[in-house]
């Protein structure tokens, strides 16, 4: 067996074990819901969820509600990350402003934003804005703290090197600071994606005219658990897709990084 095969094997093995666990879980769920002694009205079951998903998709409802949620999530990620990165950079450069505002922002981030969600709905109405605001705020706290920490932790010598080689402050920011901070920004974005999804869905729970969150509350009130599960499947797919996109971006942007594991090599 060559070295490449040896390296591949653990990954293949992990994939096989993972698949077996998930498939076994689904089969057990299906079996106990149909032949067990509990009422599946509270959980539905896989074959029923698949049937409902097909109906949900072919009726055009899935597209209508998913597009609302996606708009809210992407709007939140877009505004939250842009404002988070911009403010973190500003406070990174203007230390005095950072000392004034960063503790205020940290204090705000400690307030559970979901507790304020009804107020945001009152301020911005039942439409997209209130959910984009809530999702954006949740993304902002993640991205801001990650970016600010990364900028404050930059090696001063690297900035001085750029300056001595002829870079202005803006050129240093663009060519040295931002690329160096990318691992932390991406990690903040990863947290932000989950937070954005939560923000959008909770916003829809509280007051909306549509969206997957709205559909979940609506279906729950009619005991349509299959529809709830269909919506959750769509949210799962959405979250996984966004994480996959971040993986691809990470692989491309962070090629310079050495990846390490905490384990030590076993001696034979």
């Amino acid at each position: 067996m060559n070295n490449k095969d040896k390296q591949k094997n653990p990954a293949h093995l992990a994939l096989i074990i993972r698949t077996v666990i998930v498939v076994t879980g689904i089969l057990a769920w299906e079996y106990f819901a149909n032949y067990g002694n509990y009422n599946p009205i509270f959980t539905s079951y896989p074959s029923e969820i698949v049937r409902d998903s097909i109906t949900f998709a072919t009726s055009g409802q899935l597209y209508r509600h998913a597009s609302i949620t996606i708009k809210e999530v992407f709007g939140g990620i877009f505004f939250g990350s842009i404002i988070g990165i911009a403010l973190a950079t500003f406070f990174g450069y203007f230390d005095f402003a950072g000392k004034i505002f960063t503790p205020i922002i940290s204090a705000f981030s400690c307030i559970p934003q979901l507790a304020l969600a009804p107020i945001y709905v009152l301020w911005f109405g039942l439409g997209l804005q209130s959910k984009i605001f809530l999702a954006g705020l949740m993304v902002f706290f993640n991205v801001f703290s990650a970016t600010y920490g990364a900028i404050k932790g930059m090696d001063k010598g690297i900035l001085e090197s750029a300056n001595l080689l002829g870079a202005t402050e803006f050129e240093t920011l663009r060519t040295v600071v931002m690329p160096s901070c990318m691992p932390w920004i991406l990690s903040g974005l990863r947290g932000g994606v989950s937070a954005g999804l939560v923000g959008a869905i909770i916003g829809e729970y509280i007051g909306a005219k549509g969206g997957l969150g709205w559909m979940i509350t609506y279906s729950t009130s009619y005991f349509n658990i299959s529809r709830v599960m269909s919506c959750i499947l769509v949210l799962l797919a959405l979250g996984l897709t966004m994480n996959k996109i971040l993986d691809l971006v990470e692989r491309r942007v962070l090629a310079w990084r050495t990846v390490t594991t905490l384990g030590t090599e076993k001696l034979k």
Partner: protein
Amino acid sequence: MSYLEVLNVCKSFDNHRVLKNINLSIEKNEFVTLLGPSGCGKTTLLRSIAGLNSIDSGRIFLDGEDITYRNPRDRNIGMIFQAYCLFPTMTVYDNVAYGLKLKKMPKEEIRTEVNSVLESMNLMDKAKSFPAHLSGGERQRVALARTLVMKPKILLLDEPFNAIDAKLRKSLQLTVKDIHKKFEMTSILVTHDQEEAMRMSDTIHLFSDGVIEQSGTSNDLYLEPTSEYVATFMGNYNVIDARDFRRITQGRYQEGRTVALRPEAIELEKQKFTDAGSGHIFEGVITSSVPQGAIMRFGVETEGVELNVDVLVDKATSFAIGEKVHLRILADKILRFDS
């Protein structure tokens, strides 16, 4: 006016005076070392020359131009940092090309310049590697290449050999010295390692607590230290209270407050010296021996004073710890400090 003139430069941090009226002249193509212990102000002076520190008073002239208040990016000064400070997100090629790209030089010209300097540093095969994948020595050569490609007026080296193992350090010191000659550079090295300073420099400025204690060639500082501090820092001198030395020489030596004896200037023999010459002879007992490469450093106790004596290693095998030995020091090898 010299190529680099530092005139009456003072700098304080939080009311602590780090540079006290420093004056320094460096000629073109000279290799100068700022030597001294940690916290003596040598790095602050280097950073002030680069423009990375402001100064409280004084003036700095480079190539006839007053650069005291000029932004670092407009000084055309190259600097190698202790940690090299390569851009981690860029390949070796992009690190070296960085400054030229900022100058908006045509791409083809950049490629020619970068390849030429990478070639001269034996880094062509590493052009596409990222700094994280390079060894310490390779990183240092990239840092040098990145600086040299800009053709700086002066090259500043801030303790660049600290993080490197002893063997590689010597080879990199030679590389830097070769580059200094090949590129006809003017270079300033900051170090706390006296051997490194002596190996590399045309001129050494020895710092002590924000002032230049003594300047000169390595021989000047080693053979003719003007103070006890210089003697101690440069040569592992035996610095002895004059009263102790009077006791060792049985009252024959009467001058000064302290005396300094270089370890290799003291002669060590098994047999009694027949002639004191122009100096002094005395007895002692060997208490320790420490190998130092080509020489052996013996600790010899005489009249309650412990002296270090260096002997070539092939002769040293005949001495044993606890053995009674005879020592001689010639008068012209005794340095006297009155204050």
